[in-house]
């Protein structure tokens, strides 16, 4: 099982903590890339429109080239970086995730404190066959989200978490 090998690895980002066992779907890279590229394209298009209206000076050319370079770099680097960071794991005790890229978040939520388990799939996620799973606790600050899961797996996870939370008693409200 790949997760067992990964589980033995120390988290290079936070020594002492274990790396959560599972990666998200590889298709998430394409999804994040598409999303970043799309929003980058919108910004560049808007800039071009403004520049066109004011007669395309040299300054505008530089500004547009710079934003295109930055946003293009973001669309290339961020998804891969993010894929390396995003990890998740469910034990019968807790839900454990690592998300982010430049800044990294770890979340630990006990299964016994989970109240609702939701899944949301936007149009973009559906095109790439992805879904995300959100487990909320009694704390408004405590939802745990797993993004970029394979769709069928997300459904399965949803039901398995539902069963697991059903077996644990109490939610500390």
């Amino acid at each position, binding site marked *: 099982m790949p997760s067992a090998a990964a589980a033995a690895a120390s988290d290079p980002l936070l020594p002492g903590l274990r790396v959560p066992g599972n990666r998200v779907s590889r298709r998430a890279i394409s999804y994040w890339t598409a999303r970043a590229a799309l929003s980058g394209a919108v910004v560049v298009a808007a800039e071009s429109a403004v520049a066109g209206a004011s007669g395309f000076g040299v300054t505008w050319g530089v500004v547009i080239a710079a934003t295109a370079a930055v946003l293009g770099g973001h669309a290339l680097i961020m998804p891969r970086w993010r894929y390396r960071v995003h990890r998740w794991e469910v034990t019968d*005790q807790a839900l454990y995730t690592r998300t982010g890229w430049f800044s990294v978040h770890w979340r630990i939520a006990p299964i016994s404190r989970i109240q609702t388990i939701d899944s949301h799939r936007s149009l973009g996620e559906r095109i790439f066959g992805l879904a995300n799973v959100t487990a909320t606790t009694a704390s408004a600050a405590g939802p745990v989200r797993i993004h970029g899961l394979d769709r069928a797996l997300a459904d399965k996870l949803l039901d398995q978490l539902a069963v697991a939370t059903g077996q644990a008693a109490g939610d500390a409200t």
Partner: protein
Amino acid sequence: MTAPGTAGLVPEPAGPGVTGGAVPETAVPVAEVPVAELPVAELPAAAVPVVKVPSAEVPVAEVPETAVPVAEVPETAMPGFADPHARWQRLSPRSLVVRPLTDLARLLPLLAGLLILHARTGGGLVWGIAAAAAAVVTGLVHWATTRYLITPERVYLRHGLLNQKRLSVARDRIRSVDVTAHLLHRMLGVCRVTIGTGRNDLRSGESFRLDGLTRADAEALRVVLLAGVRGGARPGDRAQTADQHVPAGAAAPSPAAGGTGAPRADGARGRPDRREIASLRLGWLRFAPLTLTGLVVLGVLFGAVVQLTNATDINLARTGPVRLVVSDYASLSVVQRVLAGGAVAIAGYVLIAVIGYIAVYWNFRLVGDGIDTLRVSRGLISVRATTISLSRLRGVEISEPLLLRAARGARCTAITTGLHVGRGAEHEGSVLLPPAPATIARSVAADVLGVPDELCSGPLERHGAAARRRRYARALAGAVLIVAAIMAATLAQHGPAWVWAGSFLLLPVAALVAADRYRSLGHRLAGEWLVTRTGSLSRRRSIIRTDAIIGWRIHQTWFQRRLGLMTLTATTAAGQQHYSVRDVPVRTGLAIAIAATGDLVPPFLLG
């Protein structure tokens, strides 16, 4: 499904206005649906225990993460989204028009605006029709795609065509089922069912809501769902929330509640075990100008004056006294104007702050009532009495805004579940002590929580040199940015040089703030209490019970990683919902998490 015994939680259906937190006037009259005669079997999915299980594993594509490591899921308990045989239910066909019509009603102002625009320019009508069509279509789609499923353990809900939402909640987590119906609903004979899990902050898309069930279905659903609410889980849950309006008739016949958390009748007055923990002293008024309460009052007063002048058509600037003052003021020299203006402003502010303090905190008393209840009463014009059940008290926050701290003052806020969430809490239900001497604030906190004084006043563990460096780096970086911006602006506008030269004063100020922020930073874990303190301009020391912690968040920015720091955040259902130990060294932070929550964290540690 547990038998009755839940009376404290669930008001029995006795007519309109008893449907949990439903607003009385919108509550559905359910009298024509005798609950007793509703066999549960009429709710198809609710009564049918779903034991049909896909014999094989649900086929999952050959992605690497197929193995979901959830331990031993019993095969018989696999209903839900993946179950192809589940009997999903739909909303009532009668409610088909509810969403489109409500959305259209919401669009009315916009449509009216567009029509007016149309009259002027000619393009608005098309947009208006498009918006209306979009509202109708989304409403219809919502209706057509909404499905719900009730199994013995859980309630499932899914809706959405392009953006699909799937929600599920365990039935034993359900705290309330509200049945409401506004005018349109009532005309159509349908209602809206909202299932509450005790969280009060859900965004609209995440709330568990079935908009458009027939009354009979809704009522039966309510009965079925609430029958599953565990008896005696937290008898205080419903009764304690401050803005709960439970009709007296509904609250009274609840023999099983046992009164543990239910609001006490006033018969408790004069009991020997009542003891006063703190009450207002006149000397505390000196702290009034040192908080922002005065500014709030000033805003309210200003609003009232503006409204008065608007309503009565009096132009204040034209009235005699104002003109007299203005003309006198105009005859002063510049220095005199500044001095006089400043003196008047300060005097006015102090006066108003004191008046505000008196209005809000007059007669303040904090009383311990028996062993399990705190009572806070205060207020001059509108008297406010809050009852806090100690079983819901998870901690206390001592806040010392900079000015208040300079005068050795502080105030206390209760960290409790069920009262208002978020920052408004400070001025709402959970005040434990108004701005008062810090020594009193600390002893009140210690007294209320029953912890040693040193947790509330004693020294905390420092976060070390790296944390100090980060405080300085952040404060100075911000100041440098501002200075640079001011410099660029003045140079571009050819402004006077003293502006940007003066802005360099920001740097030492930033350094002072950074030093103070580092001094404030600290934590302490003692027994079952976690103490954490952060902030400078508004410094807070939070003392929370470790058993109230229902999860951890660890946050590490790239900069923190380089310094070996992290921010550890305990999430909780009480107060601000999250309390952070900021910029703590990684090793120390993990040690806190491990020590505070028993066996939660160790499985995720190495070795």
